[in-house]
């Protein structure tokens, strides 16, 4: 177990270094200057020159990168060019939103796809099952920005239940935050529900035919007990395999969906920072996302070994 953790940590550091260098190289190729982009064509050229100098942007890129890495080692993510704020503050400010969005999406995926999958499996080839298959097929095919727009239109314009951009933090208004995150979370969740649902359904069908299910029934276990205690746990093992993928999709989904719903989260910050060539922020965010994904995979691995005793971490 210890060896496993050490190997994982090594892998994490390697990944981060690699990703940091890639980001740096991409920024070298990208045309555009952060200060000019921020101030636009009406800007006073003298002001632009001065600000570039103050930010150290007139230095060669490798020196700028060197400063950044030096900062990282000291635990300092640097200063945003676009927002003139510490990158760490910017990220931590948005973290609660993005994390709760991702978490909510995940909860929705789990709480919708598992019951749906089980119901469909129990009524295999019935017409509810068929209908669900068609729906989920759609759910997977619709791109999330489009799904988001449809939901905004439906709940915002038609039912007037929701107003985009009215996000309030959890600390200020719990129900308000929940309300403003529900649709975005749903947008992220729907395609993933479709994916997960299929795995649950197929898993339950497949596991339902296993010998141990007959054994359980033979002991006198009720249908519910057989399902919940025996079939479900086994069917969730393949679901867990894709859970890592789903989580990665959810994290990626927040980027698009925050944009569509104008939510001030990590994703929106990332897109803005790229378009403003705000290298320190992009660097920080990319590292953060890589870190999250690696940690998620680590957690999935652990969960996997908890759920399936045949698997032991090596």
């Amino acid at each position, binding site marked *: 177990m210890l060896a496993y953790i050490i190997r994982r940590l090594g892998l994490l550091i390697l990944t981060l270094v690699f990703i940091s260098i890639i980001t740096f190289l991409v920024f070298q190729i990208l045309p555009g200057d952060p200060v000019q982009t921020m101030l636009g064509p009406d800007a006073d050229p003298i002001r632009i020159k001065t600000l570039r100098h103050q930010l150290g942007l007139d230095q060669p890129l490798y020196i700028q990168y060197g400063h950044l890495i030096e900062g990282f080692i000291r635990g300092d993510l640097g200063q945003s060019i676009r927002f003139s704020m510490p990158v760490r503050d910017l990220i931590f400010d948005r973290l609660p939103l993005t994390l709760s969005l991702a978490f909510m999406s995940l909860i929705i995926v789990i709480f919708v796809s598992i019951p749906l999958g089980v119901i469909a499996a129990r009524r295999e080839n019935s017409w509810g099952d068929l209908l669900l298959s068609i729906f989920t097929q759609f759910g997977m095919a619709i791109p999330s920005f489009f799904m988001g727009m449809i939901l905004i239109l439906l709940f915002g314009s038609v039912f007037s239940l929701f107003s985009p951009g009215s996000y309030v933090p959890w600390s200020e208004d719990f129900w308000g935050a929940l309300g403003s995150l529900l649709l975005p979370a749903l947008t992220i969740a729907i395609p993933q529900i479709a994916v997960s649902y299929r795995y649950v359904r197929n898993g339950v069908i497949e596991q339902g035919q*296993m*010998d*141990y299910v*007959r*054994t*359980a*029934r*033979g*002991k*006198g*276990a*009720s249908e519910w*007990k057989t399902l919940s*205690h*025996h079939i479900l*746990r*086994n069917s969730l*093992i393949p679901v867990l395999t894709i859970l890592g993928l789903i989580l990665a999709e959810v994290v990626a989904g927040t980027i698009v969906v925050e944009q569509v719903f104008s939510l001030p989260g990590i994703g929106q910050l990332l897109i803005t920072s790229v378009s403003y060539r705000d290298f320190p922020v992009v660097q920080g965010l990319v590292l953060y996302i890589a870190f999250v994904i690696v940690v998620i995979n680590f957690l999935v691995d652990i969960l996997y070994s908890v*759920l*399936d*005793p*045949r698997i032991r971490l090596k």
Partner: protein
Amino acid sequence: MTGTILEVSQLKTSFFTENGEVPAVSDVTFRLEKGEILGVVGESGCGKSVTSLSIMGLVEQPGKVVGGHIAFKGEDLTQASAKKMRQIRGNDIAMIYQDPMSALNPVHTIGAQLMECLGLHHKATRKSARRQAIECLERVGLPQAEQLMHYYPHQLSGGMCQRVMIAMAMICEPEVLIADEPTTALDVTIQAQILELMKTLNREFNTSIIFITHDLGVVAEICDRVLVMYNGRVVEQGTIHTLFKAPKHPYTKGLIQSVPDVREKKQRLYSIPGMVPSPGEIKKGCPFAPRCERALAQCYEIEPPFIKYENGDAVRCLLYEAEKKEVTTHGRIGDFTRSPQPKKVF
């Protein structure tokens, strides 16, 4: 300790598939006496498993018991509610299966799976359930039962798994144990140990056992009485003694002939010619007729009746119709007493 505990009469179980009705079991009648070991033999596909699942009420879609009765201590299980069946399963009638590895849930510990049974039928405390489970594991001859409780199935060998399965089936001390080819997947030495174990349990708890196998050799070793099944029907029934000494049905004779005899060292084994017909394939006459060396012209026309003898033996063959003493499907089958032959387990 005698008396009938289970009585199956004219059981018919069919599967309703895309190709129409498949009568997996079309006419099975037998009695199980208290404390006896009843062997059920027949080639693969003749309906042995479906018969036992029918008794357990575990025939799955698209299968269904479509006819006959299963009387357990006077109650007709074909009419029993789902709840009643749940109470009977595991508690009064338990079953063990051919492949012990896949019959255990891979994600639960041996202990949890053993104790589940107690939890379902007896409101036992966790502590006493644990103690009982450990005792049970010890009784089936598993070493270090305490540790074993925390093991997962994949950590055990096939033989150990089958012992666990037996322990699991026995934990609620059922009156009837159905063992569906419990030794087929195991190698010969383990097989012998398991047979010994079953004999012992039968003796100690007076549990009635339906022992299903396609191996007549095994039957000879542990059974008191035997049913021979062919194509969803019981074709012959009798005590070990009469069946092996004087088999009546040509199919039974064929089966006995094809048992390899170690002493004679024959070059080639005898095997019954022809293919096993699938259920429902033969619509008219005796389903064995096409493979039967002694088939008469009318065997292809008339479905043979189930001829019962006073000593409890029975046969389903036209060859014996002339000498029949009694032709009735509901006739009384003579009492059967078996000679006690104490033996040490392991």
